[in-house]
């Protein structure tokens, strides 16, 4: 029992299904086979009944012959009697022992057998009587009274035989009816049993074949909802057990992968925090350094300028020039410190934008005014073309001005003779553009990218003539990108360069770009120099 239970719970699902299907198929087959057997029996019964009927008919014919022999001796035919007697003999033998030629099995019912045995006995008598009749008839010497006696005897035995064969027939019929009833009952029971067995099989399939499916559903649902590592219980060694193992292994892999992912995320988060902290410290450091460097520079420049002003007494004429040199060098150093601080601020994402609605042509003209003295000082022609109508721009005025002044100062710096042109271009694709063209030394194609790098001045330009921090273009490019735009450069070595600043008409602010706000314009303008050139007094 427990072995069956074990088989049911752990055995192969394929085997279980096959067993169930076999069971379902076997039932009707069994019922059909049994019915065939019963029907065969019933047709055998019918033939028995027919044989018994024939027996009766033959007996009746023999009796009639004997009778007619008494009444009308001329009609008597011994051949007919012989024929019928042989037929009766055959039928009796068939009933008693069965007959292959008649396709009849021997009678098996005890009651019918008794009747047949009685008929066999009566048959003996019958044969005797008919033989006697025949013998007497041949002798032609039968007295009338003897004839009468024989007649009575013949009739008696004929009727007795008739009665017997009647009984046998009846008995066979009763038996056949009973067989039909039994078959009907059997079929009814078989259908009922088949129905029950089918129900049982369906239940068994649900319970023992499909049983584990709900636990799979539960596990899948767990995994779907992120509870990785959900397990399905493994029972035995069948297909579901294999499936469960495969699922469990997958689930474990998923859990491992998930754990790794979370771990990596944490790691990345940690690294990010570290990087942010490092970046903050760096910008803090640069800011502190900037302050620490400015303080002594302030003293150097302060003493120098006081000396130049004669606060400490009259300055000999030939000392003016060196004092001016100290001041100029200090200003260069100050510009470098400012630039480094700007780079650090942009890198740390702490360069705030102050957005306002502005007319870009005004800014271009302002820049032209700032550049004009520089150009005049070098004997260069400066043209400013800001006539292109451009719609209102929302951007950071100071930063645009710084970029353009930077580019302009650069153009002037690297141009020995000729001109510098500042031009506002027609707006396109939501952007405005300002172009700065010079007739300067130009840039070799291979160096076009390098000029925007930090502390990069082209090697052959390291002369007194081109002094600068080397950060101007790098800062300008960063500022332009900070404002959502870019700077392009075209150049022919020895003929000049064209820098194009392209910026969006509306600066879009994303989360990392700082927190732009409208500058309190009135205050800042009164607050004096707060821009990058603040310290570099002229």
């Amino acid at each position, binding site marked *: 029992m427990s072995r069956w239970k074990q088989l049911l719970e752990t055995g192969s699902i394929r085997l279980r299904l096959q067993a169930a299907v076999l069971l379902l198929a076997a039932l009707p087959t069994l019922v059909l086979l049994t019915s065939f057997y019963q029907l065969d029996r019933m047709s055998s019964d019918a033939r028995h009944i027919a044989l018994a009927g024939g027996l009766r008919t033959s007996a009746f014919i023999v009796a009639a012959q004997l009778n007619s022999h008494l009444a009308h001796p001329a009609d008597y035919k011994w051949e007919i009697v012989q024929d019928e007697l042989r037929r009766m003999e055959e039928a009796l033998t068939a009933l008693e022992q069965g007959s292959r030629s008649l396709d009849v099995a021997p009678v098996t019912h005890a009651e019918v057998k008794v009747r047949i045995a009685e008929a066999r006995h009566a048959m003996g008598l019958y044969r005797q009587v008919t033989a006697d009749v025949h013998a007497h008839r041949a002798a032609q010497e039968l007295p009338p009274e003897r004839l009468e006696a024989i007649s009575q005897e013949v009739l008696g035995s004929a009727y007795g035989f008739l009665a017997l064969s009647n009984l046998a027939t009846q008995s066979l019929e009763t038996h056949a009816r009973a067989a039909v009833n039994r078959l009907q009952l059997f079929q009814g029971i078989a259908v009922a049993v088949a129905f029950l067995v089918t129900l049982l099989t369906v239940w068994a399939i649900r319970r023992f074949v499909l049983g584990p499916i709900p636990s799979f559903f539960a596990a899948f649902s767990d995994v779907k909802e992120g509870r990785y590592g959900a397990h399905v219980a493994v029972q035995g060694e069948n297909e579901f057990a294999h499936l469960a193992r495969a699922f469990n292994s997958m689930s474990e892999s998923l859990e491992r992968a998930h754990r790794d992912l979370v771990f990596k995320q944490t790691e990345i988060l940690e690294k990010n925090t570290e990087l942010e902290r490092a970046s903050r410290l760096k910008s803090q450091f640069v800011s502190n350094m900037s302050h620490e460097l400015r*303080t002594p520079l302030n*003293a150097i*420049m*302060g003493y120098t300028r*006081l000396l130049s*002003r004669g606060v400490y007494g009259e300055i000999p004429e030939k000392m003016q020039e060196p004092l001016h040199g100290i001041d100029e060098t200090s200003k260069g150093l100050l510009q470098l410190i400012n630039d480094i601080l700007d780079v650090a601020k942009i890198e740390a994402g702490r360069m705030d934008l102050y957005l306002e609605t502005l007319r870009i042509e005004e800014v271009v003209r302002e820049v032209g005014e700032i550049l004009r003295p520089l150009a005049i000082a070098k004997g260069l022609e400066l043209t400013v073309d800001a006539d292109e109508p451009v719609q209102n721009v929302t951007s950071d005025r100071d930063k645009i001005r710084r970029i353009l002044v930077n580019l302009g100062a650069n153009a002037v710096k690297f141009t020995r003779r000729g001109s510098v042109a500042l031009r506002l271009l027609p707006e396109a694709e939501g952007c405005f553009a300002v172009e700065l063209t010079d007739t300067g030394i130009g840039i070799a194609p291979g160096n076009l990218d390098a000029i925007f790098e930090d502390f990069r001045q082209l090697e052959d330009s390291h002369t007194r003539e081109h002094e600068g921090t080397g950060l101007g273009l790098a800062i300008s490019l960063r500022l332009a990108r900070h404002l959502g735009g870019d700077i392009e450069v075209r150049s022919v070595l020895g003929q000049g360069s064209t820098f194009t600043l392209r910026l969006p008409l509306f600066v879009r602010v994303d989360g990392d770009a700082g927190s732009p706000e409208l500058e309190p314009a009135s205050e800042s303008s009164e607050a*004096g*120099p*707060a821009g990058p050139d603040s*310290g570099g007094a002229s």
Partner: protein
Amino acid sequence: MSEQEGRTSRKRILVVDDDPHHNRIVKDLLEHEGYEVKTAMSTRQAVAEHWDFEPDLALLDIMMPKLDGYTACDTLRKVHPDLPIVMLSAKDQSEDIKEAWDWGASYYLTKPFDPQELLDTVRRMLEESADNEPE
């Protein structure tokens, strides 16, 4: 603008900065222009040594050890509500300037400073202050 104008007519300027060189330069420049100047290297020293000085204008640094220039500005404002206070700092970021406004500064200059700009600013602030006085 010379020493002969007498003590009463000379404008008094208080300078607080932790850099002695800066104090010396500003003092030399302003005294050369005829102002009376007291310097201190900290807010505490200013309060301790120049309580009776009664300045007409103050020049304050921001980044000083212990009490910073914002606190000095706030302290001075409580004692002299109408005193023009000019912050003179190496910090030049707009947020520094904004904070100085919030603490009650009247003007803001960055280091390294231009002597002429400092003189112009001081003169203008003193004139504005004089205009605002009731008499």
